[in-house]
């Protein structure tokens, strides 16, 4: 699936939305005065600034042009973000080496040309290497064994 949008319109939308979101999230923060700023003073200023930038972009788009058309394929985005989320989800259950192994195997779905022997070899090397470097040598507190099992 491919999303298409004009550049200027998209950035105008982005800044306006971020500004509006920040205003909404910060609406319960004390603003105060310049001499005695509340926690909300600077965030409010920036949120209004973002909306301002969004409006300037909008005005520029209306007056001149909406810029080039840009497009975004959704599958690679969902795929990579999915791999990252899967890493976070699987790590506490499966431990580091197994998680890395599964990640490398799952990465073959990217559509890049690959050979299974090389993938398997790199999956094994990477999972063992990561466990040795991060778990054993650098002693990071990353679970190494599945389901909290310890040798």
């Amino acid at each position, binding site marked *: 699936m491919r999303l298409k949008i004009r550049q200027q319109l998209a*950035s105008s939308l982005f800044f306006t939305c971020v500004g509006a979101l920040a205003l909404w999230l910060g609406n319960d923060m004390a603003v105060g005065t310049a001499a005695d700023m509340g926690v909300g003073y600077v965030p409010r200023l920036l949120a209004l600034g973002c909306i301002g*930038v969004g409006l300037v972009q909008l005005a520029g788009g209306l007056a001149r042009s909406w810029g080039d058309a840009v497009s975004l394929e959704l599958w690679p985005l969902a795929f990579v*973000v999915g791999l990252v989320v899967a*890493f976070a989800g699987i790590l506490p259950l499966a431990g580091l080496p197994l998680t890395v192994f599964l990640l490398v195997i799952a990465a073959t779905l990217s559509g890049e040309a690959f050979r299974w022997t090389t993938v398997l070899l790199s999956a094994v090397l990477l999972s063992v290497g990561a466990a040795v470097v991060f778990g054993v040598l650098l002693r990071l*507190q990353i679970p190494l064994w599945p389901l909290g099992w310890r040798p």
Partner: protein
Amino acid sequence: MMDLLANLGLGFSIAFSVKNLIYCFLGALFGTLIGVLPGVGPLATIALLLPITFHLEPTGALIMLAGIFYGAQYGGSTTAILVNLPGEATSVVTAMDGYQMARQGRAGAALAVAALASFFAGCVSTLVIAFLAPPLSKLALAFGPAEFTALFVLGLIAAVVLASGSFVASIGMVMVGILLGLVGTDVSTGEQRLTMGMRPLFDGIEFIVVAMGVFGIAEIIDNLERRETRQLPDGRISGLWPTRDDARMAWPAALRGTVLGSVLGVLPGGGALVASFASYGLEKRLAKDPSRFGKGAVEGVAGPEAANNAGAQASFIPMFALGIPPNAVMALMIAAMTIHGITPGPKFLADKPTLFWAMVASMWIGNLMLVVLNLPLVGLWVRLLRVPYAYLFPLILTFCCIGVYSVNYRLFDVILMGGFGAVGLVLKRIGCEPAPMVLAFVLGPMLEEQFRRTLLLSDGDFSVFATRPLSAGLLAAAVLLVVLMSFSALRKRRDKAFEG
């Protein structure tokens, strides 16, 4: 002046012994080996390697620490150049043109230029420290909240000017960056801000989460998406060494970067970081053809690398005069030095001159070791790029995930990094350069704090920024940058109108 030179000589005589040189070499070696792993930034590298130095006597430990520091920094630059993964804010600048050079088969040249420019800057700024430490530490003391605010504004404007996207969009990105930086607990009141009640956000968002996301993850998605049209660094090498043209263009840039770094580095709080961004902006402005920047301009690597290194060295002055570390890496170095009996503070320079000068000397030796170690290894690092993308991207992805997880051991950070990856890609597509956002993310909280303090002291009167000479000067420089910028934009538009 003579006794300053004598002091430096004393420092070198302490630091120079076979045993110490070996410590230094080992430090640089480990620092580079860990630092070069994508996803492990200098901060993580130094933190991981600190325990090795604990068992040595102070001088040996100090010099090994210097080796680790330089190794980690350079390892960070290496991953920034080879796979576009800046592990810390200053490498963001290096990655912009360094990575483009790598894509054009000039990775070797970029790595060599980075090493040589930082070595050159290190040599000069060691002398700068020796000559200027006493007077400059007085200048640093003249900095009040108004001046800090002005300095940060200047740094952010420089970042906007150097961004390749539209001016308005870059200003917007800076504001978004500051907003992101403010997420979390407010320092002065302890109130939660913009956290949506999510507990992992209470401490704020980690820099590495944002940087890995918008640069590392976004780059992977981008490459997978543009499979047909992409140009990856493919280990195609047109010479491992910088060409004569490269050298001709890089030298003056490194020289200017060194000056900028030495000057800005003595300003407490983020001086080195602002220096590398400012140097990039300066080089882009001075270049005959600014459009080369962002597409593999060698000055864009040499200048900022020199500025960063000179700035890091020079920042020892305010660090010891005021006890304020300019960034997280330096804060860690201070912590390590404290373990070995070096306590920063106004009296340190006067009370323990030998240790101070031994430290200055060992920083220089660490820098030297780095060049000795890494120039021969350039070929090895470049060869890593020949691995086909199908096998390389899972590797980068894995290191990103582990690197981010290892900072706080929070799975939330890993997921957040994925989110920033998606947002970063969208932003790049719609013409909003993420680099100014990342700088603003780092400077934002400091900027807000100083801004609040300034207006608290002036009782809400904004005119202090204009009436204090130093802050007025810094703000004038920022305005000048904007004016120069809009002039060249206007000229470009007029040229286009004439052509059309």
